[in-house]
């Protein structure tokens, strides 16, 4: 009834090509943004901010980054946790050594440095693909883990190897309380998600998707594989690097070298498998799922009156994650984003059968 596009005629190319072609979608998006920006800070609790929303937003950004590479360009990476750590340590060192820099500049620079490193490790993708590339990116993961744990300069000669960051200050507005962190992240993520959505609609995204679907055919119709793959690696690591910097500065505050280990890389991969490969929206779904499920698993036994040890909960979590990955790969390879799309399709007809 409500969700129908009858009568919405598109009379110009501009209207036809817009990001949200259906009026109801635009209204929904506007209301959603109004809600999360306007009402969110007043009605959400600090617990919700700190344990769900802040990690969710950052990981969603990282998942978008990984999705650009894996979902859109079809290049597998098991080393994106490493690129997050590059972003985090780059931001740490920039903020430490050039304190006069604005945090936004630091963030962008950290992303660019991560993009450079990503490009470097993306070079093998020009010659190899699939499983071989998975191993090459794993090499990046282990090498970066080691670099940040052992090369003392990166951690500013901290004896324990762990670093802690100063409070973020943007034009006199300090990001210290949970509400402010949330608003800051929300703004950053909104901008980056919007850019990503438009990137994948533009010529760059189309080149990536052509490369993913069939590289030989893409080359034949004039897409340069070097350009397509390296831009995918660069943009993807830029996003992930920014997410890493935010993860370190806003969420963790202080962290140890192994905060960005292979489990983080695998978790990012799970987010996009569960959320939906090749979907920006899916990255949000997946990130939310991965953040919320452990919390739910921790709480659920108490609600049911069963006592479970933490080891039990983490084992259960691993089992559920594992089964869900297999389940989604078999039943719905497009993930939660596809379920959302199916829901919308159904809603268009509802309540009529045809």
């Amino acid at each position, binding site marked *: 009834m409500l969700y129908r596009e009858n009568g919405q005629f598109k009379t110009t190319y501009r209207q036809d090509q817009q990001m949200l072609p259906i009026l109801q979608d635009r209204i929904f998006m506007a209301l959603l943004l109004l809600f999360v920006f306007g009402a969110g800070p007043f009605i959400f609790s600090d617990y919700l901010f700190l344990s769900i929303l802040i990690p969710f937003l950052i990981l969603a950004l990282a998942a978008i980054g990984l999705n650009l590479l894996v979902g859109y360009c079809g290049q597998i990476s098991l080393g994106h946790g490493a690129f997050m750590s590059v972003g985090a340590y780059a931001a740490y060192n920039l903020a430490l050594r050039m304190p006069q820099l604005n945090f936004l500049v630091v963030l962008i620079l950290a992303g660019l440095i991560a993009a450079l490193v990503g490009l470097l490790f993306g070079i093998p993708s020009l010659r190899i693909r699939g499983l071989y590339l998975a*191993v090459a990116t794993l090499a990046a993961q282990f090498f970066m883990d080691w670099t940040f744990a052992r090369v003392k300069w990166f951690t500013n000669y901290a004896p324990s190897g762990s670093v802690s960051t100063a409070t973020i200050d943007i034009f006199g507005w300090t990001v210290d309380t949970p509400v402010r962190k949330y608003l800051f992240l929300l703004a950053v993520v909104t901008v980056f998600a919007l850019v990503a959505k438009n990137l994948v609609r533009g010529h760059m995204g189309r080149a990536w998707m052509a490369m993913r679907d069939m590289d030989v055919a893409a080359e034949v119709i004039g897409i340069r594989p070097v350009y397509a793959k390296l831009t995918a690696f660069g943009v993807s690591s830029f996003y992930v690097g920014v997410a890493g910097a935010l993860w370190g500065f806003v969420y963790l505050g202080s962290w140890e070298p192994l905060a960005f280990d292979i489990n983080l890389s695998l978790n990012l991969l799970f987010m996009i498998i569960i959320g939906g490969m090749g979907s920006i929206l899916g990255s949000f779904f997946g990130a939310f799922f991965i953040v919320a499920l452990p919390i739910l698993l921790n709480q659920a036994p108490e609600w049911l009156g069963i006592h479970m040890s933490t080891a039990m909960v983490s084992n259960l979590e691993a089992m559920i994650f594992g089964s869900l990955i297999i389940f989604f790969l*078999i039943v719905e390879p497009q993930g939660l984003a596809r379920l959302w799309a199916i829901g919308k399709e159904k809603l268009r007809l509802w309540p009529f059968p045809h």
Partner: protein
Amino acid sequence: MKRNRNLIILCVGLLAGLIAPLATGASDPGFYIEVLLGGLMAGVLYSLVALGFVLIFKASGVFNFAQGAMVLFAALSVARMAEVMPLWLATLLAVGIMVVFAFIVERLVLRPLVNQDPVVLLMATLGVTYFLNGFGQTVWGSDIYEINLGIAKEPVMILQSVFQGGILINKDDVAAAIAAVVLVALLALFFQKTKTGRALRAVADDHLAAQSIGIPLNRIWVIVWSVAGVVALVAGVIWGAKLGVQFSVSQVALKALPVVILGGFTSIPGAILGGLIIGVGEKMAEVFLAPIAVKAFDLAGGGIENWFAYVLALLFLLVLPEGLFGEKHIDRV
């Protein structure tokens, strides 16, 4: 020709790296041989895990990330069951468990995902890894368990007359090496002399052709996952007897990835040789190269064995993408 040249360059490079510590006088021969043997020992374990990878990859084209989890699960099963029954019975039962596991994986994971992209299958085995790790530790517990094979652990001094100070060798290391050799010999016999082995080789050569002459692919997959499970069991028992059964055992799979790159995805001799090269290379690098690097760059400790294997594998990828013994064909982009 180019391949041969590259191969020669790589071999010369590896050999040069191998004898460098000795030639430059950085170490005395006795200590050098101890390091070498230690590396070979670790290499045997990498080879065993890589062997599991290669078996499954050859037969079903699946890159089995879960091999490490299988090692852990098998070792946990043996360790916990051996607490209440004799070791041989526990091992037999564990073999049974691995066969059941192979059956379940084939039914629930491989069959629905047949003909999918290799990367999708890789991600599915990632799911299997998580599930198996969680399941194993739920059922068997997540402490450190011991497997007692009844072999004395104290090292033996040999060749005292040849080298100053002699060489220390662990008896259980020797036993492990012998067990590995026996396992590989048995596998070779199984593959060459039995009907099932012939079917397995046929499937590995060409799925379609094998299916068209009536070899049941599904059953072959169950068999090959079972064999990989048994290999994982042996690797797990050896590892567990040496260092105790704990979660870190499953991480050995990550070390086996470079091994299969080095040896070639489809070659059993490649997996064995690759494992030995990685094992020795890693130990040598850690003992002889790391102190130099620490001094030169003022690092906080060595630990380069964490990534050395991967760098070696990357080097191979650049020069010799199909590995030492892999099939010549490779997906070039």
